[in-house]
């Protein structure tokens, strides 16, 4: 008797469920879920909790699908860069075709289900976000211009707008302010990363600002974008989604962020190499907290009046 399914050697390439999950960029999904949820809760319309949960889940699936399609398209350069060499495709766990199939299938499913659970405008925005991230950013901008991160950042900025549209069915200034916050935050965040992941983008031939304009110019760009971001972030405190809690958080965070950007601008490569990019790394870590706490403050401003009503 023979068993044709039996094999002597393990198939190294056969993926586990976790490998497919890794394909969906779970850390990016966390940010998408959080900002979309803040957009949904900051909107002045209450949403049924089941509809809200399902809609945010479909946005997360859409984000994961675009992550899978990005990994399919970028498999060649992911294998060259240290930061991405362990992703499922370059690691040989998932084939590019599998990633492509999963990406397309989940994109279709998420957009269709969001149209059913929320509304057509939210679904159209999700479809556009996937298209923007995969086609405009991954396929076109990433390998052709040093402005890749600047324009491509729009893809990551759409989730709070989608959240807002899920609740209201329309767009408004507040939703676009949240969009602008992420859009302006993305370049300094990624340029700081490019500064200390020294040779990665160089090796892969990705025209990051550090490669095309040099590191001194990148430091200057970080400072200029941070100044614009600070004006926007603090100014948001005086709009409908802002308030005293947001203003306090924004003043502290933006002072720290501006100080970090100034320190990066002041340094040269010799100083940075001497302390192994300590300032750049701490600016990058701060940037993660920066975005999380700004949206956390918007969330508090949104739920505080309701919670206050319950307590009194």
């Amino acid at each position, binding site marked *: *008797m023979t*068993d044709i399914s039996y*094999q002597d050697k*393990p198939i190294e390439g056969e993926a586990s*469920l976790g490998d497919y999950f890794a394909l969906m960029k779970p850390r990016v999904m966390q940010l998408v879920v959080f900002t979309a949820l803040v957009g949904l809760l900051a909107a002045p319309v209450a949403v049924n909790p089941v*509809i809200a949960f*399902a809609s945010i889940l479909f946005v997360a699936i859409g984000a994961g699908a675009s992550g899978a399609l990005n990994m399919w398209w970028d498999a060649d350069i992911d294998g060259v860069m240290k930061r991405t060499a362990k992703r499922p495709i370059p690691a040989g766990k998932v084939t590019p075709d599998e990633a492509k199939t999963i990406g397309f299938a989940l994109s279709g499913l998420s957009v269709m289900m969001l149209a059913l659970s929320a509304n057509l405008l939210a679904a159209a925005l999700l479809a556009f976000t996937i298209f923007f991230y995969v086609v405009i950013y991954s396929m076109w901008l990433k390998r052709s211009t040093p402005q890749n991160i600047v324009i491509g950042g729009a893809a990551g900025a759409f989730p709070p707008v989608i959240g807002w549209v899920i609740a209201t069915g329309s767009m408004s200034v507040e939703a676009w302010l949240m969009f602008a916050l992420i859009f302006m935050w993305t370049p300094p965040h990624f340029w700081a990363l490019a500064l200390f992941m020294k040779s990665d983008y160089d090796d892969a031939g990705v025209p990051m600002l550090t490669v095309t304009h040099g590191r001194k110019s990148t430091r200057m760009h970080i400072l200029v974008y941070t100044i614009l971001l600070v004006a926007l972030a603090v100014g948001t405190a005086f709009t409908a989604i802002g308030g005293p809690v947001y203003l306090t958080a924004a003043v502290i965070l933006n002072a720290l962020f501006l100080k970090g950007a100034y320190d990066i601008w002041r340094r040269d490569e010799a100083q940075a190499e001497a302390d192994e990019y300590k300032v750049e790394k701490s600016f990058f870590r701060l940037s993660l907290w920066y975005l999380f706490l700004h949206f956390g403050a918007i969330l508090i401003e949104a739920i505080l009046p309701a919670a206050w009503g319950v307590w009194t």
Partner: protein
Amino acid sequence: MSLRAEHELHRRRKGRNVGVGLMLGAFVVLVLALTVAKVTSGDFELPRIEEGQ
């Protein structure tokens, strides 16, 4: 004695199949919950027909 050896590969496949099964089950439950939420929240109310029409 069974001739079929349980291999690490089989465990990985089983984990994947169970995972996909659970996700499909959760999707069915989610669609049901969405349907109930939509129907009870008034989204699907039929337009009232005036008497005599």
